[in-house]
């Protein structure tokens, strides 16, 4: 048996433990922008959840990319999604085409999201039988596209996310969502983004360097970890700041100016 994957800066900032544990029952929000995508964090967390040392289950709601895209990326990182799907450890909902087909049958977007939640809830309930203690992670790959599918009805999306949040409380599963920060920057009161940030336990902000793109530093991350427990009755917020460089099989994280 190989040893657990080593922790990198991101894992430490997220509060994962070196044994592969930690980080259950939380909500993580990833915010990115046009110039720098935050999808690589989802890949990392997906790989982490599906690591052979745990028996965690991932429910993946894909709005942005088809399965083949993720399969190719994760295969390079050393994780075979097809096999995980066959092992029922990955439940992949491809919302790219499904949505369109259903809509033609005259369903409204409220019906669609409700049906989707039904599927998610069922999947979670099946996986979390009292016998085994498998942790479940729900990953939503683009909340802003969900908004598009809901025809701009922020309330529907928020309802959906609230339901998912209630699952985290009920079954102890984690929720990881990706959203685009810059879409809301010109809005007066971006309800969706504000509420997401309020609900999230960890907010990861992905930004390009202010000096523009570079080959050896692809951008910077700000990880805001809310409510760390420092012993009984004490909690604090922690902000971590570092830079990253994305490669095919992994991502290098380092503190500014500290690249080895």
């Amino acid at each position, binding site marked *: *048996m190989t040893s657990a994957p080593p922790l990198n800066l991101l894992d430490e900032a997220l509060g994962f433990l070196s044994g592969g544990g930690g980080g259950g029952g939380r909500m993580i929000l990833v915010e990115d922008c*046009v*110039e*720098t*995508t935050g*999808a*690589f964090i989802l*890949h990392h967390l997906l790989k982490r959840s599906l690591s*052979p040392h745990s028996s965690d289950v991932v429910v993946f709601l894909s709005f942005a*990319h*088809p399965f*083949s*895209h993720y399969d*190719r*990326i994760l*295969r*390079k990182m*050393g994780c*075979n999604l097809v*096999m995980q799907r066959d*092992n029922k450890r990955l439940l992949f909902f491809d919302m*790219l*085409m499904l*949505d*369109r087909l259903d809509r033609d049958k005259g369903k409204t977007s409220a019906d669609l999201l409700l049906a989707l939640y039904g599927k998610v809830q069922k999947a979670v309930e099946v996986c979390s039988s009292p016998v085994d203690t498998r942790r479940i992670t729900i990953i939503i790959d683009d909340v*802003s*596209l969900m908004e*598009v*599918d809901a*025809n*701009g009805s922020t309330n529907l999306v928020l309802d959906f996310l609230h339901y998912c949040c209630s699952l985290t409380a009920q079954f102890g599963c984690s929720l990881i969502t990706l959203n*685009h920060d*810059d*879409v*809301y*920057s*010109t*809005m007066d009161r971006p309800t969706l983004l504000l509420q997401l940030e309020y609900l999230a336990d960890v907010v990861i902000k992905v930004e390009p360097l202010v000096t*523009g*793109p*570079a*080959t050896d530093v*692809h951008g910077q991350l700000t990880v805001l970890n809310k409510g760390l427990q420092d012993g009984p009755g004490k909690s604090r917020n922690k902000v971590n700041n570092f830079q990253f460089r*994305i*490669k*095919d099989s992994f991502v290098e994280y380092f503190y500014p100016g500290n690249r080895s």
Partner: protein
Amino acid sequence: MAANKPRSSSFSRNFSAASNAVSNTPGLKHGPNGTMFLSSGIPDLDKMLGGGLALGSLVMVMEDPEAPHHMLLLRNFMAQGLVHHQPLIYASPAKDPRGFLGTLPNPMASKDDKARSHDTEQEKGLRIAWQYKKYFGEQNSDSHRDSKSEYSSEFDLRKPLERHFFNGQNIDCISLKDSADLAAFHDRCSSFLSQTPRNNGNVTSARIAVQSLCSPQCEFSNKEWEMLSFVRSLKSVIRLSNAVAVITFPPSLVSPAFSKRLQHLADTLVSVKAIPDEDKELAKLLTGYQDMVGLLSVHKVARINTQVPAILEATTFSMKLQKRRSLILECLNQAPVDGSSGTSYASSGSCSGSSKTGTLDF
């Protein structure tokens, strides 16, 4: 756990069969990560984007409200498709979109013209007397050049595309002015794309060009969410088929949040900008200012099947009309330029710009 060990290696070899089929298809070539490229019709743009436009990607062009430079990109994109006999959909808010086909440029005929114009970096390494170059080229990289010229042609913007390119082609022109909603247009696109299935042994690709999606002539231009869901579903249809769509939109006419959403939807994002005619400051700063017609910036390059971002050497390029007929893109030259690196315009002998080289205060 042991079951996880013998998973298939990441070095997959199974493209070799497909690649043979593809290499025979003109106008397509293989990119990394199992993607395939087709040419944008501008060789310089292909080079910048790492080979071309990836099949299955959505390209967005942000227009400049003051100048129709996006039309240059669209024209070359469409003409390239017709040269390669690829099916084409063109949609525009104009009343008679078919008329636009008459303005498409014709591929440049003479071969030595082409060889001279875009092999500047070869010249840098090795300077040979001009008249011997054709022997050298034939000896050295004959097959290479042949395949390259087939993949992307250079276009002569002054000559209209010859009639025979239109014959027997699957060209669909749609006026967005007539249709009240985008559902009909989407259905037309998806039925059009379903005629070109993806995993066919003989790969054919299709092109979709949409001009000025959000322009106020269209009835749906105030329904932002409808347009977004159109673009989103078009994107997912394209992803699963062998097509590339280029959509241009005017960002100044839509709300900033909407524009950002469109930019997020794009796989490849490019913006064009006109440059003011008499900008003394800029003229001093950049060499070859007189020949420039505009600036082109690349904001995002399609990342299909990979998580590694494409980092370009430069993101802003100048668009120039070489000899007033072929569109080329060049890095902005800010430093003083001697004759060796500026071949492509130094040799063109532009009537007005010859005094420019070397008058820089840097």
